[in-house]
C-alpha cells in the first residue's frame, strides 16, 4: 500500500520549504530590492493563472482566449468580500480566496455549459468575447467601483507575509493539479485532447469532462485574481484586458503545454524578465520581445529538443541509480503471441 508520506514527497517538501526560506531570508535582510520583493508575489499569481489555463489548453486541448475573465471575476468577488466585511486579516484572506474561487468556478461552469459544442477557432472567439464582456460588465456595476475600480482592499502587512501566503496557495494548487492530472479524470481529459472520438467509444462523457476542466481551471484563476487583489489593493477593469489572456497563453505555450513544470518555469521567466531588464529602461520591452521570439524559436528547434531529451534521460538515469529500487514484478505473459 502506497502512502502519501514517502521519501520522494519528503524531499519535494524539503525543496519547497528551502526555496521559501531562501527567498524569505533575502527579503528579511533587505538584500532583495523592494521591486524584486513585489515580483515574488506577482510570480505566484501568474504561476497559478498559467497552470489553470494549461489545464484547458495543454491538457484538454481547447483554445481559450478569455482567461482574464475568470481572473477578474475571482478578483472582484474576493476583493469585494474583503472590502465589505470586517474580519481579522487571515480569515478574510482565506474566505476571500474561497469566495473568489467559487464565484469564478460558477461562472466557468455556466460558460463551459454554453460553449460545449464549439471547438477550435469558434471557441477561441467566443471566449475572447466573453473576456471583454466581463470587463465591460464590472465597469458598469457601481458596487464594484465602475471604471475607477475597486479601491481599498486590505493589503498584506508586509511583502514577506504576502509572498508566504501566496507561496502556500501556489504549492497547494500545484499539488492539486498534479493529483488531478494523475487521476482517472486527468487521464480522460488528456485522452480527449489526443482523440475525442475514441474517448466516447470507451464510454467517457466528453461534455462532462470539459465542464469539469473549465470549472477547476476557473476556480484556480479566480483564486489567482484574489491574490492579485490583495497585492495591488485596487482592482481596475483595465487590469483584465485580453492582453493578459494572451500573455498567459504565451506562458502556457512556452512552457510546453500539458506540463506543470514547464508552466511554472515559463511564467517565472516571463514575469521576471521585464523586471530584471529594468536597468535597460528604454530598450526593456524590445529586449523582452526579442527574448520571447528567441525562446519560441529555440524551444521547437529539433536539435535543442533532442538535447533536452538526452539531458532529461541522463537526469532520470542518475535518479534511478541514486534511488535504486527493487524492480516491480512483471505479470506473467498469458498471451499466445510470441
Amino acid at each position, binding site marked *: 500500500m502506497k502512502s502519501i508520506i514517502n521519501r520522494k514527497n519528503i524531499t519535494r517538501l524539503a525543496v519547497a520549504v528551502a526555496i521559501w526560506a531562501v527567498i524569505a531570508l533575502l527579503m528579511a535582510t533587505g538584500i532583495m530590492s523592494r521591486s524584486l520583493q513585489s515580483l515574488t508575489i506577482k510570480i505566484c499569481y501568474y504561476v497559478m493563472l498559467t497552470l489553470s489555463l494549461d489545464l484547458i489548453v495543454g491538457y484538454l486541448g481547447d483554445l481559450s482566449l478569455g482567461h482574464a475573465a475568470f481572473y477578474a471575476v475571482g478578483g472582484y468577488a474576493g476583493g469585494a468580500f474583503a472590502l465589505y466585511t470586517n474580519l481579522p486579516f487571515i480569515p478574510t484572506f482565506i474566505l476571500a480566496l474561497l469566495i473568489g474561487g467559487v464565484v469564478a468556478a460558477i461562472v466557468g461552469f455556466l460558460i463551459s455549459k454554453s460553449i460545449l459544442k464549439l471547438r477550435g477557432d469558434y471557441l477561441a472567439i467566443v471566449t475572447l468575447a466573453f473576456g471583454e464582456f466581463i470587463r465591460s460588465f464590472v465597469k458598469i456595476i457601481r458596487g464594484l467601483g465602475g471604471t475607477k475600480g475597486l479601491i481599498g482592499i486590505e493589503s498584506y502587512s508586509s511583502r514577506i507575509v504576502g509572498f508566504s501566503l501566496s507561496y502556500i496557495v501556489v504549492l497547494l494548487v500545484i499539488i492539486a493539479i498534479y*493529483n488531478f492530472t494523475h487521476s482517472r479524470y486527468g487521464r480522460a481529459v488528456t485522452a480527449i*485532447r489526443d482523440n475525442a472520438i*475514441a474517448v466516447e467509444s470507451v464510454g467517457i462523457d466528453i461534455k462532462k469532462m470539459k465542464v469539469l476542466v473549465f470549472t477547476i481551471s476557473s476556480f484556480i484563476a479566480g483564486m489567482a485574481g484574489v491574490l492579485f487583489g490583495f497585492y495591488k489593493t485596487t482592482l481596475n477593469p483595465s487590469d483584465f484586458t485580453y492582453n493578459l489572456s494572451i500573455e498567459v497563453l504565451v506562458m502556457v505555450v512556452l512552457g510546453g503545454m500539458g506540463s506543470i513544470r514547464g508552466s511554472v518555469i515559463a511564467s517565472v521567466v516571463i514575469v521576471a524578465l521585464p523586471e530584471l531588464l529594468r536597468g535597460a529602461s528604454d530598450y526593456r520591452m524590445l529586449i523582452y520581445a526579442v527574448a520571447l521570439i528567441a525562446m519560441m524559436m529555440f524551444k521547437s528547434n529539433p536539435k535543442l529538443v533532442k538535447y533536452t531529451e538526452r539531458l532529461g534521460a541522463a537526469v532520470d538515469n542518475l535518479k534511478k541509480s541514486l534511488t535504486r529500487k527493487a524492480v516491480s514484478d512483471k*505479470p506473467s505473459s498469458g498471451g499466445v503471441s510470441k
Partner: protein
Amino acid sequence: MSLLKVQNLGITFGGLKAVDNLSLEIEKNELYGLIGPNGAGKTTVFNMLTGVYKPTTGEFFLNGENLTGKSSIEINRKGIARTFQNIRLFGKMTVADNVMVGLYNQMHYNLVDGLLRSPKYFADEKEFSKRADELLAVFDLYDDRDTLASNLPYGKQRKLEIARALATSPKLLLLDEPAAGMNPNETAELMKTIRFVREKFDMTILLIEHDMKLVMGICERVTVLNFGTELAAGKTSVALNNPQVIKAYLGDD
C-alpha cells in the same frame, strides 16, 4: 437468445442509401465476419452499432435490450466496444495510460479522492494498473507500457486498440479491419490473438476484414455487403463461394 440482433437496419445520407435493410444475429462467443468490397457500408454498420450514426430505419438489440439511437457513451457502457479502421489511439499518452482510460468506468474513486489522494485512490489505481498490465501482457505489449502510443510500430498500435476496447469489459467486440496494413506474419499472429481473446474473455466478436485468409481462418459465419445491401450470409465457406459474391469482388467473366 442471440447476443446481438440486428433488424432491418438502414441509414440514408441525403438521397444515398448507405446501408439498406440489414439483418443479422450473432450468438454468444461467436466470431462473425462482415465483409464486402470498398464502400459497401461495413464501417457505416459499425458506426450505427456504436452510436456514431443514428439509423434511419430498423433496430438492434444487445441481449434483448434495444440500443437503437443511444449515444456512443451509453452503448459502450451497455457492452459494445470497438476499434477503428484508421487507428485512434491517445498518441501522446503512454501505452499503459491508453488502457487505463479504457478502464475509467470501472474505477470507483471520485474527484475528491483523486485530488486528495485518499486510500481509495491508491487502492483503485493499484488494482486497475495491475489489470491494465495483465491486458497488455495478453497482447505482448507489457514491455512497451511506458512508451508513447504514437511511437509504437503499426502492428502493436492495432493490438493496443484492441486491448483498450477490451478494457471496457464489453460483451461484444467490434474490430474494424484489424489486419489492415499488416504483413502475413503479423496477420497470422493477430489471428491467434483474436482466437485467444475469444477464449480467455469469453468474447463475442464481429469483425470487418478485407484479408480473406483471416476471414476464412477465424470467422464461423459472415455477412457479405455490397452497395449497402446484403449479398450473402451464412457459413463462411458457403457464403464466399456464392457466385454473386465472387462477381462483386472480381467482376464479371
